[in-house]
Structures are given as C-alpha cells and as structure tokens.
C-alpha cells in the first residue's frame, strides 16, 4: 500500500515534470531531436561548406610576374580620350579653341555662334596655338556642309559641333575627331570622348534665353500628375486615377471623361512622360526642363545631354518602358521631398546649361576643358548645384568651400575676417579717416590700397595695427575687381577713398555678410526700372522703397566675384566699364545677380542724411561728370547679358534692436543710431 502510494506520488511528480517539460522544452527538444533539415519556405541559402577554410584563393601569388607583359595598350576599333586626344598641346593656358572660319556665305545664327565663341575666354586666333580645333557644322537649312579643313590631321584634337541633327552627308571621314551632336544614340556615342548636346529648336535664343517657368518650389495643389506628349507638338495632361496605362495607345481608345485636357505648348504637370525616339523625344525633354516638369524618360535610346558631367538622376526619372504600371506606381508614391528636389533641379539645369545656344556651347567647351584639367576639373558638386559650372570657375579653386555657394552642403562657414580694398582715384587724397575706421573693426584682416591716379604714391601711410598693402593700379576702373593674389580672405570690403563709414557700420555689415556670403551687402543703393517712355531700362539712385543694386564704393562681397568679373565677363563689357566708370557698379551688380538670382542686401547707413552726396554721386569717376552714362549703360549691359538679371528687394537688414525704445546701453551697434 505504502509502495503504491509512493508509486502514485512518484507518478504524479513524474507527470507534472512531463507536463512542465512539454510546456517549456518540448518544442526545443523536438527541434533538437529532428535532423537539421531546412524548414520548408525558409531560404535555403548557399551552403556553409565544411571545408571552406581549405578552399584555394582565386589568384595565387605566383601569378604576379606572369602578369607583366608588353606595354602595348589594349586597343579597340574606335577612339577614346586617351588614344585620340593629344593633351600636350593644351599645357599652360588650358583649353584654347580655334574655330574654322566659314567658307562662303553663312547664316545669321552661324555668324552669331562664331561671335559668341570668339568672345569667350577659350578663343584663340591661331590654329597653331590652339589645343582644340572646332568645326561648326550647323547650317542645316542651307544644306551646305563644311569641306575638309586645312589643319585636319586625321581629325586629331578636333571637335565637330553639330547643333542640329540635320544629317549632313559625310563629305570626309571624321577620323579621330570628337563629335558633339544633339542627342546621339547610345550605340554610336563614345562615352568620355564624344559630347552629347541637347536637341535645340531652331528658334532657340542665342544668349540669355527664357528663364525657367517654375514659379514656385512645390507643385500647385491639384496640378496633374502626368503630362503626355501630343503628336502635333503639344502636351496634354493625363488622368492617372482611372486608367491603368494612361500612355498606352490601346487604352486611349476609350478616353474617359476629363482624360484629355487642352493642349499646351509647355506642359503643366508634375511629371512629363517622354517616350519614343529622338529627335522628337529629345526636344520634348528640353521643353519639360524649361517648364519645371520632371521628365520621365522611358528607355531612352539616346544619350542625355552632357551626361558626362550632369547627374540626371537628380532631375529626371529614367524608367523601363516595359514596366509601365510600376513606373506609374512609383510616380504616384514618390515622396514630396524627392518631387520637390527633382522639380527644382530641372529649373537649375535649364537656367545653367540649356536656356541659350551660348550656354550650350560654353558648356561643351567646359566639359572638354574638364577632361584636360584632370584633377583640377570641376568637382561634381559644382556641376550639379546652383549656380552651375559655367559660373563656378574651376580655375579659382577645386575646393567647394572656397566658393561662396556651397557652405551648406559642405558644412563649412565663410571665414570670420575680411580685407578692405580701398580704391584711390583722382584727386588722390590718401583716405586716412577711412583707414582708421576700417582698421578699427575687429573683423578686419588687412587693408589694401589700390592707387589708381596720376599722383605719385605717398611715401607715408597712417600707423595702424592692420597690415596695409599698397597696389599701384593701371588707372583702369575695372582694376577694382581684379583678383589680386594679396587678397587672402573670403570677404572683400570694397571702398572708394571718398566713402565714409563708421567702424560699427563695417562690423554690422560684415556680420550680415557672413549669413549671406554669396550676395553683396552694401550701404547705398540704386534701382533699375522699365522706362515705358523710352522703351528701355532706366536707372535711378533716388531713395525709393525698393532697390536692386548696391554701390560697390562701399560693399561687402566674396572675393570669388573678382575672379568671375575678370575671367568670365566678355571683354567688351569690361571695356565698357573702363570707358564709362559709373557702369562698373552696374556691371558688378548684374554679374552677382546673374549668379545668385537674388537681390543684394542693404544694411543701415548712418550718414545718409548728411553726406549722402559724395557716395551716391556714383562710382569712382572724376567729380566733374557725375553719373551721366548710367541709364544707357544699364541697357548696354542688359543687352550683353541677354536678359535682365537684376531683382528688387524691399527690405533692409537692421540690428535686432535698431531704434527700438530700449536703453541704448543694451544695444550692440548703438553708434549706428546716432543722428
């Protein structure tokens, strides 16, 4: 009995343990007990070999010597940059371009393109000194093709530029020449050697060009998602909600209500679908860019323009035409952030590289120069973010932080010091008071005096703690914006000897400039306006509620603008500035506005009421003829730029407590408020 009870209690304990066992460890035990077979459905994967450690390496050390064979470069049938371009001719000045003069009568476009290349900094008149020989082959309408030029030399170091893809019967073999043509097919295009151009319509403006159509950053609410091309060169918007395949011809047999909208010459939608082959697709591509409509390219068989340097993934969607549903879904689900970025990039690219024939040609030359420059070429960032590589010269620097435009992307900030550049024109009084005021600024690093008048250099200069350098100028007004190597800081305070500023004005203006290093920060302003009566631009230095220019006789700006002024402006414009000194202000403002697409910044100027006259009387010109040529020079410069880049601002940046009803002791820039 006892044993039975014992057995029963034992049995109970055992059952309890079993239960526990089943609950806790049953499953694990089962897995332990079963052989390690893969569970169905789970990925089986590549096996872990037992002898993986024993496997041999794919390359044995002994193979190295065998690897050394003759220095005979592998060679294929066609050309690449290394094989067919002789860079030794380009040593020294970089890219120098000779353009073959046209034989016989030429069209107006041809003539103007020639003129625009001749005006550029790349041009040379001697074929011997040139490193690139340019052959224009663009008279599509006359049907005339160029004949073999003299210095052809099997096409070596030649670029054949075909702006319009009118097939010119090949009168001679291209040989080793590079070809720059509109939307080449991917099969004939030689990457890194040929240049892909955009497909320009016949009436494309030569210079300046129409600005992008984008009025706002984000798409308007309710705007169509997708625009489709129409056969007769227009666009229509597609209703993507109902139709599964809105661009498929089969679906269009039954157009739902509202599927077809009115035709437009420029698309008005978030995305523009571009399918089909060149040249139609390529010309639509450019339209979409201009309209700020994100191009969706379906399996393009043509090379996108300047694909060597432009990162098109930032501005367009290239998709496979075989997966239409997937593309549509991807467009519908694209994040607002991506749409926003793509939209803005289309506009930037249009304005930077495509809006005029001149820009297209200069971009082509810049691409080739970058190949020659190698390591000192434009970094990708300079090509693909505003203001673009045509306006960010790689000859200035290849480090983005040296430019005023990329501090955000680089996580850097402009330097905390400035150089004062004082221009001393006639009558040539050493600006002692001004030097004292500027030297008093805690941010000043050096003072440069640009002596530009007939009087001899004074032998003694005021004692300051600040390093003072005197440059003997060439008596030319455009000297004021020469990139002197002695300027060692990012910021330049450009001054005229007759300017009058206080130390706190300088200090505050510089602190403001640090927030806007790409803009000009000035004290005195002027405006441009459209003069209906004369049918041209007018200029006024009157005090108004808005302004579009600051006078460079007292203004902060980045020293990069000196380089840009001297090296990128056409010679004709700089000559204009030398001949009419008041124009130099206007010219500099045009240049900065064309780069930044923003107005300059005005800061308060205390002495405005009393002494406005000498500063405002315009430019460093002689006192005897103040301000006369200014209105005309606005028109001349605008014509040379091809458009009016100036923008108006209605605000002034003041210190936070400026003229607030609070104790002066609390204010940092209190002397700004002294009457």
């Amino acid at each position: 009995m006892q044993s039975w009870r014992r057995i029963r209690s034992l049995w109970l304990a055992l059952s309890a343990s079993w239960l526990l066992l089943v609950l806790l460890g049953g499953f694990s035990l089962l897995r332990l007990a079963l052989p390690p077979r893969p569970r169905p459905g789970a990925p089986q994967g590549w096996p872990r070999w037992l002898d993986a450690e024993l496997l041999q390496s794919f390359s044995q050390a002994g193979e190295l010597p065998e690897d050394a064979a003759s220095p005979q470069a592998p060679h294929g049938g066609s050309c690449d940059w290394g094989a067919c371009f002789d860079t030794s001719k380009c040593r020294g000045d970089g890219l120098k371009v000779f353009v073959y003069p046209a034989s016989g009568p030429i069209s107006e476009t041809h003539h103007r393109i020639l003129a625009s290349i001749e005006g550029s900094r790349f041009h040379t008149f001697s074929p011997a000194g040139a490193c690139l020989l340019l052959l224009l082959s663009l008279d599509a309408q006359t049907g005339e093709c160029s004949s073999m030029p003299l210095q052809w030399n099997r096409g070596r170091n030649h670029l054949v530029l075909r702006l319009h893809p009118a097939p010119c019967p090949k009168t001679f073999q291209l040989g080793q020449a590079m070809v720059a043509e509109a939307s080449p097919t991917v099969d004939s295009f030689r990457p890194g050697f040929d240049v892909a151009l955009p497909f320009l319509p016949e009436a494309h403006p030569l210079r300046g060009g129409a600005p992008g159509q984008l009025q706002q950053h984000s798409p308007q609410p309710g705007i169509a998602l997708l625009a489709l091309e129409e056969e007769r060169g227009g666009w229509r918007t597609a209703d993507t909600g109902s139709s599964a395949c809105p661009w498929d011809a089969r679906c269009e047999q039954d157009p739902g209500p509202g599927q077809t909208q009115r035709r437009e010459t420029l698309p008005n939608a978030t995305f523009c679908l571009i399918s089909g082959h060149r040249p139609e697709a390529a010309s639509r591509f450019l339209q979409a860019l201009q309209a700020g409509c994100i191009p969706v390219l379906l399996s393009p068989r043509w090379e996108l323009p300047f694909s060597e340097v432009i990162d098109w993934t930032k501005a367009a969607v290239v998709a496979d035409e075989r997966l239409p549903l997937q593309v549509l879904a991807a467009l519908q689900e694209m994040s607002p952030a991506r749409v926003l970025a793509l939209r803005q990039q289309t506009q930037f690219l249009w304005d930077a590289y495509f809006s005029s024939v001149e820009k297209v040609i200069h971009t082509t030359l810049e691409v080739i120069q970058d190949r020659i420059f190698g390591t000192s070429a434009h970094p990708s960032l300079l090509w693909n973010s505003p203001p673009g590589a045509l306006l960010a010269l790689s000859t200035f620097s290849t480090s983005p932080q040296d430019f005023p435009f990329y501090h955000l992307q680089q996580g850097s900030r402009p330097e905390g010091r400035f150089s004062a550049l004082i221009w001393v024109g006639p009558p040539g009084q050493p600006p002692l008071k001004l030097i004292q005021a500027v030297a008093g600024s805690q941010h000043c690093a050096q003072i440069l005096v640009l002596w530009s008048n007939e009087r001899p250099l004074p032998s003694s200069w005021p004692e300051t703690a600040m390093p003072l350098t005197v440059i003997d100028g060439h008596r030319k007004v455009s000297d004021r914006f020469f990139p002197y190597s002695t300027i060692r800081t990012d910021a330049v305070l450009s001054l005229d000897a007759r300017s009058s500023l206080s130390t706190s004005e300088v200090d505050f203006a510089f602190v403001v400039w640090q927030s806007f290093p790409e803009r000009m920060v000035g004290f005195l302003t002027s405006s441009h306006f459209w003069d209906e009566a004369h049918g041209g631009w007018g200029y006024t230095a009157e005090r108004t509620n808005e302004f579009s220019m600051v006078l460079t006789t007292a203004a902060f700006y980045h020293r990069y603008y000196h380089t840009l002024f001297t090296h990128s402006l056409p010679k004709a414009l700089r000559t204009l500035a030398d001949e009419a000194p008041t124009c130099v202000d206007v010219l500099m403002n045009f240049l900065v506005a064309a780069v930044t697409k923003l107005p300059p910044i005005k800061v308060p100027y205390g002495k405005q009421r009393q002494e406005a006259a000498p500063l405002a009387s315009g430019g460093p010109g002689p006192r005897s003829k103040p301000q006369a040529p200014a209105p005309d020079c606005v028109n001349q410069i605008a014509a040379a730029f091809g458009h009016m880049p100036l923008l108006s601002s209605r605000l002034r940046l003041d210190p936070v407590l400026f003229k607030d009803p609070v104790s002066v002791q609390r204010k940092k820039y209190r002397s700004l408020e002294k009457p």
Partner: protein
Amino acid sequence: MCASVKYNIRGPALIPRMKTKHRIYYITLFSIVLLGLIATGMFQFWPHSIESSNDWNVEKRSVRDVPVVRLPADSPIPERGDLSCRMHTCFDVYRCGFNPKNKIKVYIYALKKYVDDFGVPVSNTISREYNELLTAISDSDYYTDDINRACLFVPSIDVLNQNTLRIKETAQALAQLSRWDRGTNHLLFNMLPGGPPDYNTALDVPRDRALLAGGGFSTWTYRQGYDVSIPVYSPLSAEVDLPEKGPGPRRYFLISSQVGLHPEYREDLEALQVKHGESVLVLDKCTNLSEGGLSIRKRCHKHQVFDYPQVLQEATFCVVLRGARLGQAILSDVLQAGCVPVVIADSYILPFSEVLDWKRASVVVPEEKMSDMYSILQSIPQRQIEEMQRQARWFWEAYFQSIKAIALATLQIINDRIYPYAAISYEEWNDPPAVKWGSVSNPLFLPLIPPQSQGFTAIVLTYDRVESLFRVITEVSKVPSLSKLLVVWNNQNKNPPEDSLWPKIRVPLKVVRTAENKLSNRFFPYDEIETEAVLAIDDDIIMLTSDELQFGYEVWREFPDRLVGYPGRLHLWDHEMNKWKYESEWTNEVSMVLTGAAFYHKYFNYLYTYKMPGDIKNWVDAHMNCEDIAMNFLVANVTGKAVIKVTPRKKFKCPECTAIDGLSLDQTHMVERSECINKFASVFGTMPLKVVEHRADPVLYKDDFPEKLKSFPNIGSL
C-alpha cells in the same frame, strides 16, 4: 551530461523496493525527464544559440561531395558576348516584375562539379573568394531560393580567374544551366580576365547576353550601363590590418611598389626617382631574401627592405600601373593605406565607375605622360590631396575591403538600374560619413522669389476665444496678399459659431474641425492650403497691423526657405548649468521666431507632421507646449539657415502662452521652454538653431523721409 549520469547512478537508491521491470521503466522515464529539463534549462540560458545560427537552415557538406555533371564534348556553346547589349535590349525586366520593396531577387545555382567526357574536371570547383561572394549574396536581402521568382541568376561556376578555366568547357557548363536562355539575366563575376599573350580585357568565355561584373574592363569591352566594373580583390585586405592614418603630408611624395613591372615602365619610374631624389621611392621585389614564403609581403629598394603594404602608408601618392591586365589588386591595397592612387592604365574602366566619382579619390595619368607625373601631382593643392586621401580610404572601407562589399555594391548598381526611382544618390555613394553628417541639403535650394500674386494662407489655431478670433480674422483680412483664411477649431466639446456669425471677409474662410485638441494640428498640411506661403497666427494676435503683415509676406518671398516671424527669441548656453537656456529678453541676437505669428513654406507643415525626428511631435502634443520651438528646430535643421525676424519689437501680450490658458509668462514657463530646447537638441543630436544679429525692416524704415511716400508706413507703432 555529467549531471544526468550522476542521477542515473543514484536512481536505484531512491526507489529501492520496485520490480526490476518497473524500476528500469521509471529510471528511464526519470532520466528522460531530467534530460529534458536540463535541455530546457540550456535553452532558457542560451536562447539565441539556436536562432542565430544558420546551421539549422544550411547544410554542412564538403565541397568534394557535390554532384558531378558530365559535359558531352558536343554540348552547345553560347554565342560570344554581344557588345551592343543594353539593359533595355538584353535584360528581361519582366522577371523583376512589380516589387514593392524595389529590390531585385537573386538566385544562386547549386554547386556542381563539371567534368568532360573523360572525367577530367573543367575547372577548380570553387575558389575561396567565390564561395565568400556567393555566401554574401545568399545572406543578403537580395537572395531568393525560388528560381521562379528570381530576377537575376548567379551561376555557381567560378570564373573569377580565367587562368584556371578551360574556356570552351566552362561555356558549355554555363549553357546547360536550367534557366540559361542565352544568358539573359545571368550575372558572372570575373576579376582576372584574359590570358596570354594578348590578355583580353573581358572574360573570354562565350557568355552571350550574360552581364559581366569584370575586374579589368577597357573602354573597348565595357558595355556602358550593362556590365559592371568591379575591383580586383586583394587578399591582403583580409590579412593585414592597416589602421586608418589621418590625411596630411607623408614621408614619401610618390611611391611605386608593384613588382613585375615592364622594364620600360620601371626605367621611367627610376628616372623620376633620380630626378626628384628622396621624395620618390621605387620598390621592387626582394632578391636577396632567403625565405621565399614571405616575399609577397616585402619590397626592396637596393638593399633596404620594406614591409608591404605598410610602406604604402608612408606615401602621399601611390602608382598603380597596369600590367598585362588593366585591373590591379594593388589598387585595393593603396586605397586601404589612404594613399592617393595614381592610375596609369589607358582606357581602363575604374571599379564601380558608374557610381563612384574617382576624380575625388585618384589621379589618372595617361601612359604617355608618365614622365610628367611628378609635376602633375605637385600642382594639386594640399587641401585637395587631403580630401583625396580621406576619400581613398572611404572607398576602400565601403566598396573594396571584402568580397562581400564588392558583391553587394555590384548588386546595388544593377538594382539601381532596374528601379531607378529608388536609386541611391551620388552623395550616398560618394560622400564619406563625416561629410554626410556635416552637410545640409536645403529642400528649397532653388533661388526663387515667388510671385506676389500667389498670396498666402492664414491659419488661425483657436480653441474657444471666439471674440478675439473674430478680431484677428477681421484684422488679417485687411492684408492685401491674403488669399485664404483657415480656422483650425481645436475644441471638440464645442461647435464653432454658426456661419452667419463669422465676420464677412473678402477671401474664402474655411473652418477645419480637429479630432483631438493637439498643438500639432496647427502644422498639419491641410489640403485647403493652396498657397506656398502660410501665415500661422494665434487667435489673440491682434496687435499686428496690416502693413506689418503685408511686409512680413514680402520678406518671406525673399526668404521662402526660412521662418519669417515677428517676436524673436534666443537660445543661450548656460555655463553654470551646462545646458541650453531659453531667452526672451531684449537681446541683440535672434535664433527663433514664435509661430504665434510667422510666415513659412507649407512644405514645412509636411515635414513637421510626417518627418519630425524622434518622439518630438508626440512629446509636444503631450506637454501642450513648445510646438513653435520644435518648428524652429526642424526648419533650421533641414535648411541650415537662420530665421528672419521682421520689424521692431512690439508689446505682445504674452505671446508664448497663448496655447495654454491661464499660464503666465513666469519662471516656470521659462524653465519649461528651456527644457524643450534641451530635449530637442538631444533628439536632433545637435543644436541646429543659428544665431543672427539682424532683423528685416522696410528699406526706408525710420529714415528721414516723408512717411506718405513709404510703402509700409504703419510699422513699429506700439
């Protein structure tokens, strides 16, 4: 196990008076229970030992046990590679189908051993590296074991090194793969292509339409946008641990460490050494070393012996000259050492050149310019060199250092071609982590002044102060550029007043009722907002004049990517408490504006609602405070820019506490606001707010000028 044995022995003593049959039965049972308990215990203590090991899913077998496949001598051979292949012609994208994750699926064929009619193997079964490569693919998100769902097929036939292959038979082996179909969607990896004497720059095995990830492409063989150029893996990457060396000048300016260079090249290099002396070092293999085994890791110059690859870290630039093959494994060693490679290999397609920007990490010198190399390198500014050194090391870490890195980068490139709208950007491929962290990409980067005609939408957040709300509506409606007014009714217990009671204004007025009384409702991206400019205004801000609001809008147009507001605030570092402090006194600086009255771009509403980092949004809703500080943080963080404060200081009636009734601007309030700043700074991981000393006024503000000629005369009156 020992324990159970012990119990086994003690078993009989516990149950002495049982029949032997029973006893054995119970003992067995008991032991099993004990065993089970012990096993369970083991699982409890090491619960991950089983889950984490892949051994449960993957067979453990020997490479020698794989099935043997006999290839008849007359089995078909694929066509030679088609040079005109592109993704849209030779690649079957339908196999990749619709994939919500935008990831291609990759299938790996099972390993087989191929023999010819005589039983002679076609090649070595598999190399260590190819095994690693397939393992890496198998472990990645790309892998599928379902051949029917696969978009890309990777044969297990190892063609990394052409030297070990019998070309024709390997091709036959490829052709008999079950889904070969002319090689469509098949991916081959090859690092050492060609063979003597002419060394083709691509794999000689006929492969028809198969994609080739090749380690030595030239411009003649590389099919742009179809093939992938990959590095030649250096086994030293795994063997040698070279710690990262900071950029900066190094002992040698230029070093050449390759052995087996063609004599002509070596002469050129030695001429450089003679010309430039100490700064150039040309190394060769060591002839006087007794031990042959270590010679791979040694280099000699005359009688001086150097450790390789450590010596590369002593140089700023390292020569990577092509041999018979264009792709050289030394490129990987050079990058690992943070030395800037000087690539001298005409027509060579650098590894991953489709996505990597080699200009940032290397110098390419044409072969005919070898003698000018020194002067070319010397013309590079020091800052750029340091940038390149950093970049070189980063490329190695990200894309060269292991077979796995190489395999995954290759698949990513193919994936990006198939799902281009989900592709990785240039910056993600190329920017080192430090740059990625420091850089800001402003979402509204295009310089653009929106047209004035667009106007703005005013959003008034209100709870139940109807009288004050109506006054605000009346005041705001006087602003010329107002295009719509949106009232966000945040009170769920009370209905908004009837339509007839609302002030009659010239623009559309909409009332939105919210589901919950949350502060974040003010920043919701309502469909009703049609303009880009939004004016957030509290229901008690009645002191702003029409001129002030209109001017605020004009200022926003010039700064559309910033917060443009009226009352400004500042954050300060409290040195005593060692934390941030909120400041609302009359200061000379501004870093925030209150959103009780502020203009901003409506995109920031989207960001606030859907992209606010961490738990800030919920935290703000729970605390009913600091939504404005959160907005200031958010905008400053994405744009990297400061706020713009407009017009002089006004007597705002406790603007901070409008959202919380009854709470006055007292000490507790300031403490709370300070806490918000500290909380947000820790969530953002940085202090994004920017401090400025300026505010925006009309051009002629307080100037000695006739008031009636000023555009905005009624500004700044208290």
